[in-house]
């Protein structure tokens, strides 16, 4: 009796898990299958016959291709600045006694969700306008950097604080200058953290719609998240064959980036110090 119940709960559990998994997997499956389907459909179906025609059309659209490049510039730019500045700031915040630094960081995190959100759109637009950065990729990158930095610093600080100070002190006593110490000891040890922040920042900028949509005017500077609307009909309905193909292209870099970092770093840490 007990055994039967045990088996039944197990079966029910796995059934439930399978259902949940399927629920989340179906859209992914759709995204992978539909671009190769000559018929645009919202159903998940194996394309027969499979075709590359959709992609050919998408590749022929110069505006959409240019948009992917713009997205890459935005994503990589935002990623580099955010990661670099966050690492240095987190290090400084963790290794010096700034009075009320925890409060400072929490307050900044709170406000940062405003910066990248809708509420501050008008002041941000005005700010960028007066800086003369409207319709420039740099303006968008700066807004994202400002919005992402507090959280990035918060994440990085955890990584920095995980490094025992004796590593740095040992380097200093060994004769290193502070700069050599940072390069040789601190930077390699926080590298996994930098990777986490980098990916997070890239994905954030890559997928963002509202800010570039508002700050960029000319079609040649639009990123992919905005350009996907060029595959809509005049009436405003998506052309499913083309949007799905473009969406797949749009999703690939993030996927590749994640796999690459996971393969290279595996988000593991070097265990080393004896306590």
């Amino acid at each position, binding site marked *: 009796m007990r055994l039967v119940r045990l088996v039944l709960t197990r079966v029910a559990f796995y059934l439930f898990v399978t259902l949940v998994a399927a629920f989340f997997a179906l859209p992914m499956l759709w995204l992978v299958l539909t671009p190769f389907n000559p018929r645009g459909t919202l159903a998940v179906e194996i394309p027969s016959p499979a075709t590359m025609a959709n992609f050919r059309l998408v590749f022929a659209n110069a505006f959409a291709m240019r948009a992917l490049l713009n997205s890459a510039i935005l994503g990589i730019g935002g990623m580099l600045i955010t990661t670099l500045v966050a690492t240095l700031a987190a290090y400084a915040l963790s290794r010096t006694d700034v009075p009320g630094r925890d409060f400072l960081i929490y307050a900044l995190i709170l406000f940062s969700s405003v910066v990248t959100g809708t509420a501050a759109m008008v002041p941000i637009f005005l700010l960028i306008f007066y800086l003369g950065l409207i319709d420039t990729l740099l303006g968008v990158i700066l807004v994202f950097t400002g919005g992402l930095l507090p959280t990035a610093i918060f994440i990085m600080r955890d990584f920095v604080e995980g490094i025992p100070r004796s590593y740095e002190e*040992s*380097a200093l006593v060994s004769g*290193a200058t502070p700069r050599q110490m940072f390069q*040789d000891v601190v930077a390699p040890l926080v590298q996994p953290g930098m990777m986490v922040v980098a990916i997070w920042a890239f994905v954030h900028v890559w997928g963002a719609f509202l800010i570039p949509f508002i700050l960029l005017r000319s079609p040649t500077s639009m990123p992919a998240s905005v350009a996907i609307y060029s595959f809509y009909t005049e009436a405003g309905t998506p052309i499913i064959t083309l949007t799905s193909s473009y969406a797949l292209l749009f999703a690939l870099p993030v996927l590749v980036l994640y796999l690459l970092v996971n393969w290279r770093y595996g988000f593991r840490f070097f*265990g*080393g110090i004896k306590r």
Partner: protein
Amino acid sequence: MARIMLENVTRRFGLVIAVDNVSLPIIDGEFFALLGPSGCGKTTTLRLIAGLEVPTAGRVHIGDRDVTGLPPRERDVAMVFQDYALYPHMTILDNVGYPLKVRGVGRREIRERVGEVAGFLQIAELLERRPAQLSGGQQQRAAVARAVVHKPQVFLFDEPLSNLDAKLRLEARGFLKHLQHELGITTVYVTHDQAEALALADRIAIMNQGRIIQVGTPLEVYRRPQTTFVAGFIGNPPMNLVPCRLEVGVEAAHLVGTTFRLDLTSLRDRLALTLRDDEEVILGIRPEHLTFCGQGDPFAIPAETYAIQPLGAECVVILLVDSTTLSVRLFTGEPPQQTGRVWVGVNPERILVYRKSGELVLG
């Protein structure tokens, strides 16, 4: 090689005075131990010498230079940290070679010199490994190798043996002493283990609450502890400290406890010089200067056996005298015949007398 001078050095952290007006001359080439209980300021003193802390007041000299304001890299010192601080992302070769690398030494020469040191410290086969793949003892030797590789003027150790197990610790002790002797580099060694300090050091400074209480050779601090704090800290088991009262007459002098009365007439003049009649004092006597005796002995104290600890070569007996305990060390190794109510005789020549406030007045 260089001497080190601390001149009235004070280091405060907010309200905490970690190092309190410390003046220490450390002689060129000596093995100097800083000994004291946890939190007494040993590590801070070491870091002040290394340049990892800046003194709130006072000056630090290494060799003939005043290094008070200089960063660590300009002091030509080397330090072995308690956790060894081997960089986990570098091989042992890169770890040990790091002080050379930052000095701009070329790769070939680094390899050569690391190889030399590694051979000497018996870690030559481990050079390609990462620190995590080394045992505790090997890590310790790698950390020492990194400290010696650039031939510094001064060696600083912060409890380098406390992470090792008991057997390895004894081995490493011998190895460190031998190494220091070979190299002749001025060494400051921080520890809270009095046996380690006695075994290793040429001279020992005992610290408490940021101050230096006593400086001396191991024998000096063992034989004549200047305060009851030092007496209670050094030796295993530490010195017996028995509160009693002094009776100084015109002719005679006696130390009076609740259950005993020791005749110190032979020391009467010296006692009368510094102490008053009827003053409360503390009697200090090492466990090895107590022996079992008969009731008639003039220096006998009645006691109750509390515990017997045979240690092989010797035997430690714990006795109860009224409310205080007395340790007796017997070098025969044989446990005593009598138990229960016994008499222990005090060797009057080995008696130390402390004021109630703790400082030594006779010994």
